[in-house]
């Protein structure tokens, strides 16, 4: 189990006569990811979801807060001894084109992490070969075809599968998939999602799915949790189906309302929420971060900061003074 408590991260832009601007990427985020569980972070670009994924993969530092991996608080360890813990969390990038070295065959790409693994566990060269083939089969590729090839000889979907196989070489506890399907062709996307779901079932790997596409988050696991993040703050969180079917935060409702409706196949939700345009983020902190764009804001929203809770008796947690269910999601009109 991996938990985070009050994670904050501020990026300081260099330059400028007055020392540059500060961007608060994360403003005290709490999360819990169970072993074998599925958690999805959704939100727009710049909301901090990618930063959180990078922190978990050990690629980014955080300013304050605590991450506990299987009961071990990371703050109790020195930088060097944290690494083996973070290694159990592997990141899958958005872009499988740049995640693989174009000058190396897939065989070579898998060889490097496998030889590290072999050294750690005292295994032989033959084990590495066997393991490479095993992992490629596991992700649905034909090892004989893929191993001798270079990344450019494979399709986007195949490359992403190779990246997943490579992440699995170190026997991770968790995969962080950051927009892992957004650059894959539509007809191949579902295959990657199904693979991630399958890995949860077969290997007990937990999946942290970072995306702006809510429907794909649902596909990774109906038993999972959805975190809606706005400007570095979790504004709504709960079971996937609850947050999608009964969202109470106006930002979640705006996100769901913005999903294109397949007219002819679907009927749009009746209470779609359209927020006003994004505004300058230099707004004071003692207010709801979404207030400036929110069509339902009141006096209280601009003078007080809402915190995550179950106000109004909702099943999910939310950070809104005026939680209200709205029917925003399109419903199927015909069955294919």
């Amino acid at each position, binding site marked *: 189990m991996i938990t985070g408590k009050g994670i904050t991260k501020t990026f300081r832009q260099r330059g400028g006569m007055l020392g540059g601007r500060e961007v608060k990427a994360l403003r005290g985020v709490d999360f819990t990811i169970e072993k074998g569980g599925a958690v999805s972070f959704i939100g727009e670009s710049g909301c901090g979801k990618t930063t959180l994924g990078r922190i978990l993969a050990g690629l980014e530092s955080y300013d304050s807060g605590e991450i506990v991996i299987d009961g071990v608080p990371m703050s109790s360890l020195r930088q060097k001894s944290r690494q083996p813990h973070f290694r159990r969390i592997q990141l899958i990038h958005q872009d499988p084109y740049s995640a693989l070295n174009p000058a190396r065959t897939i065989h070579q790409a898998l060889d490097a992490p496998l030889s590290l693994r072999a050294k750690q566990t005292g295994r032989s060269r033959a084990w590495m070969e066997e393991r490479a083939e095993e992992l490629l089969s596991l992700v649905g590729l034909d090892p004989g075809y893929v191993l001798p090839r270079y990344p450019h000889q494979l399709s986007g979907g195949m490359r992403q599968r190779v990246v997943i196989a490579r992440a699995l070489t170190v026997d991770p506890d968790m995969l962080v998939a950051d927009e892992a399907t957004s650059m894959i062709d539509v007809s191949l996307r*579902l295959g990657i999602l199904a693979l991630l779901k399958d890995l949860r079932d077969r290997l007990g790997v937990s999946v942290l799915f970072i995306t702006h596409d809510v429907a794909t988050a649902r596909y990774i696991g*109906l038993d999972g949790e959805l975190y809606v993040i706005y400007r570095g703050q979790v504004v709504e969180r709960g079971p996937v189906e609850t947050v999608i079917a009964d969202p109470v935060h106006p930002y979640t409702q705006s996100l769901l309302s913005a999903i294109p409706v397949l007219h*002819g196949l679907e009927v749009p939700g009746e209470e779609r929420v359209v927020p006003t345009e994004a505004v300058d983020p230099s707004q004071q902190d003692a207010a709801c971060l979404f207030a400036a764009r929110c069509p339902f804001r009141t006096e209280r929203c601009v003078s007080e900061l809402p915190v995550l809770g179950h106000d109004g008796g909702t099943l999910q947690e939310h950070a809104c003074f005026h939680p209200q269910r709205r029917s925003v999601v*399109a419903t*199927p009109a015909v069955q294919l």
Partner: protein
Amino acid sequence: MSVTSDKRAPGVRISDLSVVYRTPAGELPAVRGIDLELVPGTITGVVGESGSGKSTLALSLLNAVQPPGRISAGSVEIDGLGDVVALGGDDLRRARGRHVGYVFQAAQSSLNPLKTVGKQLLDLGRSHDVEDLPGLVKEARSLLDRMGMDGARVLDSHQHELSGGMRQRVGIMLALVLNAHLVVLDEPTTALDMITQATILRIIREVHEERGLTTLVITHDLGVVAEVADRLAVMYGGRVVEQGPTREVLGDPRHPYTRGLLQAIPRLVGDIDEARALPGRPPTLGTIPADGCVFRERCAVRMDVCETGEPPVLTQGPRIVACHAADMGPEAVTEPAKERQTVTAGVGDTPTTGEEQA
């Protein structure tokens, strides 16, 4: 359908268009024998995966296919302009921008990072011999204001000062400011956030209607087409495999590829196991089958005839499907396409579409 009274919206008739790319393996067709009509005043969406030929098709509208590619056959007739395939030199240069506006994919990389938007606007005006430059700036400002931005501020900005959604709107402004009434938008919302995407799609729709345009939207995202387009054309392996009114095609897809694509989209409600991946992968330029149906390798209803026989082009009312297995009912008109030559495809081949507009 939104046929406006504005007579300026031009119609476009693409007939038997083929585009080939020269490769070490010979000339390979990226687009083959396409017949497509853009009805004046409508938005047509062309949807396809990577390698389907949709961007090549869009470039053909400007006769802007770059070597090693070339238009090998067919014509693109634009009202008031004639066949753009036959245009060249200065005629072609003037037509681009004046008659056909093009909004490029990734507007951030099509803007000059060193110049303000206003300076680029003036460059555009000068290169098209616009005499009334202050008038052009005024028009640009009102277009930007119309799209919900502070026009004066945007014109004074460099591209890095604008967000993705704002850049996309600048791209739309630059495509419209010379008063083009045929607009091509290539992946207008890729790399934009959901909420920004919804805003841009609404703006495209509104500007289209207010200015009386004929619009072509190229995208990989069926959702985008579903939101904006009156008509939809689905491309696969360089062919249009199905076309018709958007709602009808989405509600009752008749080509196995369209059906498979729709089933492969995860949905927000209902049984998630209903979503099913399409087996196989899209063909690339080198692997598009030369004979028979381009989709057969991934098709669930494939038959022997699909291996060798060119799929018949079936027309019923406003709908057209190219499939051996499509059931268009008793009224369907079957027009078996003639055998096409393999590499320099589509020469002398004129499958009729008999398209009727509702």
